[in-house]
């Protein structure tokens, strides 16, 4: 009963566009991203430089994050927060094999991750009556049935990733409470208290929790990425007045206090770009991604048409300008950066940028992943 309600096969709404993509180089990884057209129809697409299996799948509503199941060659495409669906598609041909719908009293919150063995999908969720964050567990080998939930140890969990051990989940608890009665309205801006929580996936037990300093309690921790050495890079969004200038990026190593923290007492190492660049970020970061070799990470600030680049130790490296840029994914020698005007740029290690893909009527959404 439950699995029928939760996992509907809706292959009828699949839309194949055919391999008509224009891409320059042929040695590039395939890219997966959600996008919207100018008539507000929403899709997820795989862009294949070799042209073999590019596909477009129409989504029930606007998409957001994407998780990859390497074992079963599947992608989970999450609805934009607060959402009520996760689409499961085959990476090979884009076949929509089903849609997980949100369980009663829960909303999906835009992101999730598969366990390395491909057995479970972990999704950030909101138990909206209590306002508490949850991590929903879905069994990939059993029709994506919901098999349980863990506490997220905070309010408003957004992006989640696993550490190198494959058993510790790091959660960006944004701290912002929403309720379906008041769609997308942030109901606790005065009292919000975001955190970065580490929890054991087998038990849900909290292993470690760090918060921004009290002064910056309106600094919502939304997005994160994890390097092979477990350095966590965090991209934040400030909910206070735009005339204030909080730091927006931080790094953290679970179980270790990094040196050089600007705010003693907080084990998050908060990073600030040079003044001129920091103000361009407009108190808003959209996504963060580590480089393929884990030596650097990139953070997008779509409101400032800007992407900044940082060494894994938190040293500022530089930036590049790209209109409405948000999605970032790995390339062997740099990053791909997508934007709301339809362009995907390749930004090399020396921060030189060139257009890789440019499509009309495509507005690439917040996040993009590379299948290397």
């Amino acid at each position, binding site marked *: 009963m439950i699995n029928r309600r939760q996992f509907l096969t809706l292959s009828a709404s699949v839309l194949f566009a055919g391999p008509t993509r224009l891409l320059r180089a042929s040695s590039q990884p395939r890219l997966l991203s959600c996008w919207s057209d100018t008539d507000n129809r929403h899709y997820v697409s795989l862009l294949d430089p070799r042209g073999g299996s590019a596909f477009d799948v129409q989504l029930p509503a606007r998409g957001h994050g994407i998780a990859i199941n390497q074992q079963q060659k599947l992608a989970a495409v999450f609805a934009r927060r607060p959402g009520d669906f996760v689409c499961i598609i085959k990476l090979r041909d884009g076949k929509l094999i089903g849609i997980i719908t949100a369980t009663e009293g829960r909303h999906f919150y835009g992101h999730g991750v598969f366990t390395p063995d491909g057995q479970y999908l972990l999704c950030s969720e909101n138990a909206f009556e209590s306002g508490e964050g949850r991590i929903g567990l879905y069994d990939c080998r059993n029709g994506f049935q919901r098999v349980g939930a863990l506490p997220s140890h905070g309010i408003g969990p957004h992006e989640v990733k696993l550490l190198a051990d494959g058993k510790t989940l790091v959660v960006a608890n944004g701290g912002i409470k929403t309720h379906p*009665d008041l769609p997308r309205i942030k109901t606790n801006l005065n009292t919000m208290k975001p955190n970065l929580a580490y929890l054991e996936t087998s038990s849900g037990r909290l292993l470690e929790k760090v918060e921004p300093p009290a002064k910056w309690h309106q600094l919502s921790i*939304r997005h994160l990425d994890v390097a092979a050495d477990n350095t966590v890079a965090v991209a934040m969004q400030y909910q206070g007045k735009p005339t204030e200038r909080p730091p927006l990026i931080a790094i953290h190593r679970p179980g270790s206090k990094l040196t050089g923290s600007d705010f003693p007492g907080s084990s998050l190492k908060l990073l600030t770009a040079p003044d001129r660049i920091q103000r361009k970020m407009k108190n808003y970061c*959209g996504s963060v991604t580590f480089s393929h070799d884990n030596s650097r990470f990139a953070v997008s600030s779509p*409101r400032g048409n800007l992407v900044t680049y940082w060494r894994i130790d938190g040293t500022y490296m530089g930036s590049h300008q790209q209109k*409405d840029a948000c999605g970032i994914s790995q390339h062997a020698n740099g990053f791909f950066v997508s934007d*709301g*005007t339809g362009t995907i740029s390749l930004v090399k290690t020396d921060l030189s940028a060139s257009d890789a893909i440019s499509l009309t009527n495509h*507005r690439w*959404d*917040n996040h993009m992943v590379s299948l290397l």
Partner: protein
Amino acid sequence: MKTVLMILLLLATATTNAYDFKTLAENHILSGYQQLELTTNSLNASAQSYCDKQDEEKLDQLRNHYRSAFLDWQFMQPIRFGPIKYLNRENRFQMWPDKRGSVGKHLRRQLQDGEITDPGFDISSKSVAVQGFSALERLLFSDKPIDSIQCKLIVAITGNLESMSSDLLQDWKEGDSAYAAYFSTAAQGNDIFESDTELAGQILNSLYTQLETMVTQKLDRPLGPSINKARGKRAEGWRSQTALPALKANLEASRQLYQGMYANKLGKQLAAKINMAFQQSAQLVNSVNQPLKTAVTDEKLRPMIVELRSTLSVLKGLIGRELASELNLSLGFNSLDGD
């Protein structure tokens, strides 16, 4: 002498081509918020006076004060960025559209809860749905008599509207971080706006979003797909019969924004098309002589509203696509998202 004249002429041309944010801030935005502060102040005074001694005449006065304050708010609705976004003010002023009936639900809950009579009751910390015009309208325009608990809430809401309005005005014009100051220096770049193009794009976005709201929320929803499927009670402010006056205020404010910012920078053809669309829309709004709630099911009036919707759609396209491309401004996608 000739060179001096040439330079003066060049300067004059340059001035007409530069965006005049300062005038827009002073003549449109600050004066609009000032007006809102005044009318919400009168609204609060009127609520207190009514609740001291309830009678029909004072209720009529209170309802009139409600309407003027609500329409002043509607006039400022196209300014959808800056201090109105601080602390959820936009939603606290008005919770609409309310597709899930949250205003009614939260209002009932708030009225049953005994805390309204507590001396320290602070409505600004309660659900956004009960803090502003939407909840107030339900309280003031119901058929049932208003009891003393409801009166306390009415006074609290009107007080909240007044204090939000004055905070809003203050954030725009006072102190080192006055928002209007960033308008004056946008061309040189400042902490909020990188350039005049950014601010011009921000205002355009705001204007476009307003037109879209008018089409898709304020008209589409009550109109429904056909006369039999029209839903008059989906009209904004149907209880106080303010849906069409609100549209009129939105339209006039949008026209002023367009006029103050972009009109003199466009080619003649596009400017003429936009003017025409504004004029036609205004004529259509004025010619509907019934509240929107009933007009959507009226054989004669419905076609006018349908036409109004399509004229506004055209206007939205002219502004969002043609104007944006002619002036090289962009509406943004990820930058508007907030996720």
